[in-house]
């Protein structure tokens, strides 16, 4: 198998090198990729949508259908991870252990007994990880700023590099960082499985709903200029706002999918322990 693989790889590589001889040189302004469609997008983006970031206007307006189904693909991937891995109905163990945080004394409780809810005790089970002050404190200080930056990246996708996909990944990463630095239970307390599972399709629905709203207002699917009558702005500004609406939907869908996939894979679907 190794030799066959090597032969296939070398033959493919040889074909690619042969084809690369006809490709345009690096950074050639007259290359085919930069001559036919892309000048139109660059020159008309500001006129059509009043979005200075051409990538954003191209992503959510000119190629709106593509992006909508990419979002659907991401949602489907999250759903597949859930269906493949999630095991529900975790059995409660007969005895439970609690650790007194200040003294380090461990208490064992028989079935059915519970400790009064307080900050002084933490439960020791599969979810428990040894305390690490530096990592926990460092991450707790950083996470709010990471989330703020994620929101900034989504909101400023119009005029600076950013948008729903990037901001969504940053927001998802902040919750995943919480799960890594503390434990999966802390992350699940902040972002419950149910919330994740509901927000993920809601993100896709915001995108598709914006398109359907345009359809109901009498124009094509995802033609945001129709939103002008709802938002009381001119049609070009309405396109800009429409792009922002779908970016929010993309951001929510991407954020929750990242969290969903991480939760399911890191605990093998049992939600009992993270990495």
């Amino acid at each position, binding site marked *: 198998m*190794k030799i066959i693989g090597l032969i*296939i790889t070398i033959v*493919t590589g040889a074909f690619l090198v042969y084809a*690369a001889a006809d490709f*345009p040189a690096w950074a050639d302004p007259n290359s085919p*990729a930069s001559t036919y469609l*892309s000048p139109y997008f660059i020159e008309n983006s500001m006129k059509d949508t009043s979005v200075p970031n051409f990538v954003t206007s191209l992503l959510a307006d000119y190629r709106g259908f593509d992006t909508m189904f990419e979002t659907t693909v991401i949602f489907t991937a999250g759903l597949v991870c859930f269906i493949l891995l999630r095991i529900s109905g975790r059995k409660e163990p007969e005895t439970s252990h609690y650790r007194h945080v200040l003294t380090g004394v461990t208490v064992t409780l028989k079935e059915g007994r519970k400790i009064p809810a307080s900050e002084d005790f933490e439960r020791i089970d599969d979810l428990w990880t040894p305390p690490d002050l530096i990592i926990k404190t460092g991450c707790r200080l950083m996470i709010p700023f990471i989330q703020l930056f994620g929101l900034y990246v989504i909101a400023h996708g119009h005029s600076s590099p950013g948008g729903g996909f990037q901001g969504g990944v940053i927001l998802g990463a902040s919750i995943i960082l919480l799960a890594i630095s503390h434990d999966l239970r802390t992350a699940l307390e902040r972002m419950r499985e149910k919330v994740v599972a509901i927000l993920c399709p809601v993100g896709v629905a915001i995108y598709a709903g914006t398109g359907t709203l345009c359809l109901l207002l009498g124009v094509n699917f995802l033609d945001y200029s129709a939103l002008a009558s709802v938002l009381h702005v001119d049609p070009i500004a309405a396109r800009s706002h429409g792009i922002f609406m779908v970016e929010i939907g993309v951001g929510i869908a991407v954020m929750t*999918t990242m969290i969903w996939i991480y939760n399911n894979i890191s605990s*093998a*679907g049992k939600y009992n322990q993270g990495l």
Partner: protein
Amino acid sequence: MNMAELIPALIAKYNYWIYITLMMIGLYAMIAKNNLVKKIVGMNIFQTAIILYYVSIGVKKGATIPISAGGHGAAHEAVHAADYLNPLPHVLMLTAIVVGVATLGVALALCLRIYNRYNTLEEDEILAQIRKK
């Protein structure tokens, strides 16, 4: 073609050589490696090669990032296509990166299921167990 012509021609297309090398590494790992996780790593290297290829064909000499220099205020100024990079490859790869992460998640989930059932991730051992049944 003599050496004096060949070397500038090679340097002018160096982005393609990098992407072809990465793609061959990924393809070889996907075909020849026995461990399923190593195959997934190969798939990701392959994906990175494609992303690198797309982003590199969007580059233009003397152009800047595809964001209008005037910002929101410059709505009526003429924009020259030669001043900005090609935004189309950026858009395609932007979504491809996130979809790549999602497909990586699905691949790892499938691996977990396979491991739960066969207690191994080596391809030949899995095939031997399937044949035995």
